[in-house]
């Protein structure tokens, strides 16, 4: 006997079936937790590359929230916006990594503290 009544083992069939809001809340919790993990990583890590990886993590969390809302409202605009999130992430990765390589060539280090004099 299935102890949890609505636990369906197979993937949800078909887009038209509406999703209930508690199910949406599950996905939003995962998205929020992933965003916060990315944020903490951005604040604590001192390696430039890892900091950019953490921003990608936050993008990813936003993407999950967008897709979950798109599924809830049965509207494809959320998925369309994930395409643009991917575009921005790709552009950001290209620029940021080019900058990181340049900075590394100047100081031979990836530490953020090395560039501390730029603050203020």
């Amino acid at each position, binding site marked *: 006997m299935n102890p949890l*009544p*609505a636990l369906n*083992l*197979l*993937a*949800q069939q*078909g*887009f*038209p079936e*509406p999703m209930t*809001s*508690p*199910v949406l*809340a*599950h*996905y939003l*919790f*995962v998205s*929020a937790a*992933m*965003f*916060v993990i990315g944020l*903490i*990583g951005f604040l604590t890590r*001192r390696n430039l*590359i*890892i900091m*950019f*990886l953490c921003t*990608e*993590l936050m993008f*990813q969390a936003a*993407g*999950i929230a967008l*897709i*979950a809302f*798109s*599924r809830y409202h*049965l*509207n*494809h605009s959320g*998925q*369309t916006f994930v395409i643009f999130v*991917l*575009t*921005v*992430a*790709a552009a950001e*990765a*290209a620029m940021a*990594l*080019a900058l*990181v*390589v*340049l900075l*590394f060539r100047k100081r*031979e*280090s*990836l*530490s953020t503290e090395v560039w501390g004099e730029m603050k203020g």
Partner: protein
Amino acid sequence: MDLIINPYILYLGIALGAIGVCLALPRARVSPQAIGGILAAVAVGLILIGLGFRNQNHLPNLYFYVFSIVALGSALRVISHQRPVYAALYFILTILASSGLYLLLSAEFMAFALIIIYAGAILITYLFVIMLATQAPSEEDMDRLADYDAQSRDPVFATIVGFILLAALTTMLFRGSPSLARVQPQTGDALLAELPRRVENELRKADLWLEGDRFATAADGSPLIDSAHRTVSVVRRGEVVAIDMPEALHIRNVEALAFNLLNEHPGTIEIAGILLLMAMLGAVVLSRRQVQFDEDMKARQARKLAEAFAREGSAAR
């Protein structure tokens, strides 16, 4: 208003998660990373079980739990692993798990696009840069970590700030989500009315479309395609006939997504194109200095060669 989870469980879970993440962050001396990871996993489990317990009739798919735990666990490993290469590899795992979540949310196209673009392109760039921009370790201490990788900056403070944000976010989400507008069930094929050529092709394939047929049109000129009753009205030899749609005729995720993209957000595509162009130009400009140097070298070399030739020529004469 009520939360959709027992608030004690929620805040206990968030506090446990904060302690876990704080312990898992890298430290200079021996750090209890494993204990931190276990605590964070217990916290996520606690919150998910708490959520499921209150809403036993509205549980997500079982695979949701698998994918979300893999995604969050490897996300924690991205920020807690001391070696950047492993952090990037764990990020790939996060991407795979969240594309699994996309699949559960019936966004098939985006799930595979995510794997292709993120895991296939962006992460490979990251790996290249990690390999380009690390000092070669000396022979005797291969395992030595750079100081900035081994230690994190203010882990306690950052974790507290982050988890206060998480507490605020989850309180808001769990309080607000029941009041979201209930969505009426609709047939996903409503889009078929906008795509008469697609319907026609499918009818032709099923041999339901005879030569000389055309769609019967409503007063405003739109074709009469009734996706709710799955019938199409066709003018055949002067009479209007209703044809049942073939079973195979459904709007797929890619079609709906493409229709939405081109129909409702055409300007955004242009902006995305300009953004990508600018990023490409920027990357070229940033990495150009090295090339310029080479050009100078080449010019100097060419001048030297030309002078040598001229000298030889004058000597021969």
